[in-house]
């Protein structure tokens, strides 16, 4: 059996479940309460759980993210919502220099059981300061785990294991997915360790995550029409990367394209390519290609924004390039 819901509802359900299940869990962030959540993820929560557990914060990203880390050290299980990844730059010091390091620096004495959620990505004409995709940056930092739910199931299921993790977990939710609908099986299970094949294929592995997954799937359909059978791999967990699953797909298909909304240079796509180089170089029939954002601050105008981002057409072209 299954039921239909959208990404936003799935994440909302996951938070609701966590709040009901564990009194140590609380949600904090800008406008999570009275406003109902910037993207309505927490609508109604304030009434149900009260202002202590649905805690609106002032505009103090460094302060309240640091406070969430402290609360985790103090025995709570905070979910802290940073409105978008763009504003998380203000909180990076606390995430990188406190959350990620405390366990190691203390010789294992203290851990930080914290979940940080943030919206990421472009595509809604929000212009340069509101369109970053910095998952790749976060995936560089030892001491944190990084998740990118791109399906209804993952939006529904990743939060619980993230909260159960004794160490900090960052969850990136791509704004382009919020209204996406899907069927959720009643017996869904979700882990936060593995990458998953979303579409099986044998000719080329399209490796992607987050907001680019629907684009990759669309590209795969277009390719199928022309006789190229693409496998689509959803990384899901950006740190630590599930290298084995990536290599299995690449070894099978002998061709790969990595799709990543980050700017090309220094993208997470580069890391995936480096690992492919290190692990299955001799099994490649062609160099791995990537489709990333162009090296430009994301422009406001729709046609320019579209041109700056990965699109199904570009993915199709990149795949074709491998076979030409």
């Amino acid at each position, binding site marked *: 059996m299954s039921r239909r819901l959208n990404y936003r509802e799935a994440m909302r359900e996951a938070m609701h479940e966590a709040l009901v299940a564990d009194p140590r869990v609380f949600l904090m962030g800008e406008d999570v309460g009275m*406003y109902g959540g910037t993207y309505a993820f927490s609508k109604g929560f304030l009434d149900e759980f009260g202002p202590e557990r649905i805690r609106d914060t002032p*505009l*103090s990203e460094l302060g309240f993210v640091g406070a969430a880390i402290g609360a985790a050290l103090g025995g709570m299980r905070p979910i802290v919502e940073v409105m978008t990844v763009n504003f998380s730059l203000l909180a990076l010091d606390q995430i990188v220099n406190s959350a990620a390091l405390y366990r190691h620096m203390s010789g294992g004495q203290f851990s930080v059981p914290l979940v940080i959620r943030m919206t990421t990505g472009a595509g809604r004409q929000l*212009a340069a300061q509101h369109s970053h995709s910095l998952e790749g940056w976060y995936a560089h930092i030892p001491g944190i785990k990084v998740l990118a739910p791109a399906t209804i199931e993952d939006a529904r299921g990743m939060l619980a294991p993230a909260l159960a993790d004794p160490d900090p977990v960052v969850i990136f939710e791509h704004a382009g997915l919020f209204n996406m609908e899907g069927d959720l099986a009643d017996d869904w299970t979700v882990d936060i360790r593995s990458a998953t094949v979303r579409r099986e294929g044998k000719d080329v592995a399209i490796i992607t995550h987050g907001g680019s997954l629907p684009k990759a799937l669309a590209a795969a359909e277009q390719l199928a029409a022309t006789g190229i059978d693409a496998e689509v791999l959803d990384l899901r967990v950006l740190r630590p990367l599930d290298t084995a699953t990536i290599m299995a797909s690449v070894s099978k298909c002998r061709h790969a394209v990595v799709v990543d909304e980050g700017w090309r240079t220094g993208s997470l796509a580069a890391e995936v390519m480096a690992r492919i180089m290190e692990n299955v170089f001799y099994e490649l029939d062609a160099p791995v290609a990537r489709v990333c954002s162009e090296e*430009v601050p994301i*422009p406001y*105008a729709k*046609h*320019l924004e579209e*041109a700056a981002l990965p699109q199904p057409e570009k993915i199709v072209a990149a795949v074709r390039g491998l076979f030409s």
Partner: protein
Amino acid sequence: MTVDHRAAPPPTGPVPWDKKFALRLLADMVRIRRMEEKSAELYGAGKIRGFLHLYIGEEATAVGALHALSAEDNIVATYREHGHALVRGMDMGAIMAEMYGKREGCAHGRGGSMHLFDKATRLFGGNAIVGGGLPLAVGLGLAAKMQNENRLTACFFGDGAVAEGAFHESLNLAALWKLPVLFCCENNLYGMGTALERSESQTDLCVKAASYNMPALKVDGMDIVAVHEITKQAVQRVRAGDGPVFVEYQTYRFRAHSMFDAELYRQKAEVEEWKTRGPIHTFSARLKAEGKLTEEDFLALDAAANAEVDAAVAFAEAGTWEPVEDLLKDVHTS
């Protein structure tokens, strides 16, 4: 000049200005209002996209304050800056075309509503990071001081920005280094859905500013006369060279925070009460009472504003798209 921010009576009293000046400021408020109303409409029609933050209700602040500045001064503003851009002297067509994302916009469609820039009038943006403009304003002030330029930098920001570390660091730097910066806090009582008293342990923002050893003034931001006069005083003090001044404009936005806001966090009645203090109709009433404004005057300036809006929309509509081949332009100078 102190007002009870919540329940003050509508502004009244004499207007110490000649008719020409008074009408100019009234006209500017009306120009903003009409432009914003049209923007909302165009957003509904899908012509403007992204985030759109309207200035409706707050017009007295930008108009009263900016008319106290000179053309040499620098302006730094937020994402709620259409009004500032317009009053500062930007062409409404260039603003509208930018919001359409057209090549004829001030940033060729790269910036949109939140990022209006204009070198000619020294408008340094349009910054969509809350508090992000404050350090820039400090630096512009530093540059002016180091180059012995007689210009100040007026930095507009909201009550929400006061909680940011950037506010703290910037006010301290400006005061410590005695920089010519005018901190213009547009306190509209909410940062998005968060009321000031749910955001600040000390809700008197002047007390906060004063803790940096900086003169701090507050004013009824719905009263354009008070806004302008206090800003003139503040400007004078800044120009005297003794460092920055902070002004809190106590105002209110009549519309939602942006176009995606269900306004669950405030009562309709509160909004309605504030509307009775609306800067345009209260100022008009005062001018009329003094015989400085006739109904025909008002209709004329309103018609002019509407005509300007129509022309701006026509300009934007007729605009072209930046070629996609130019996508990578203006990332670097060369």
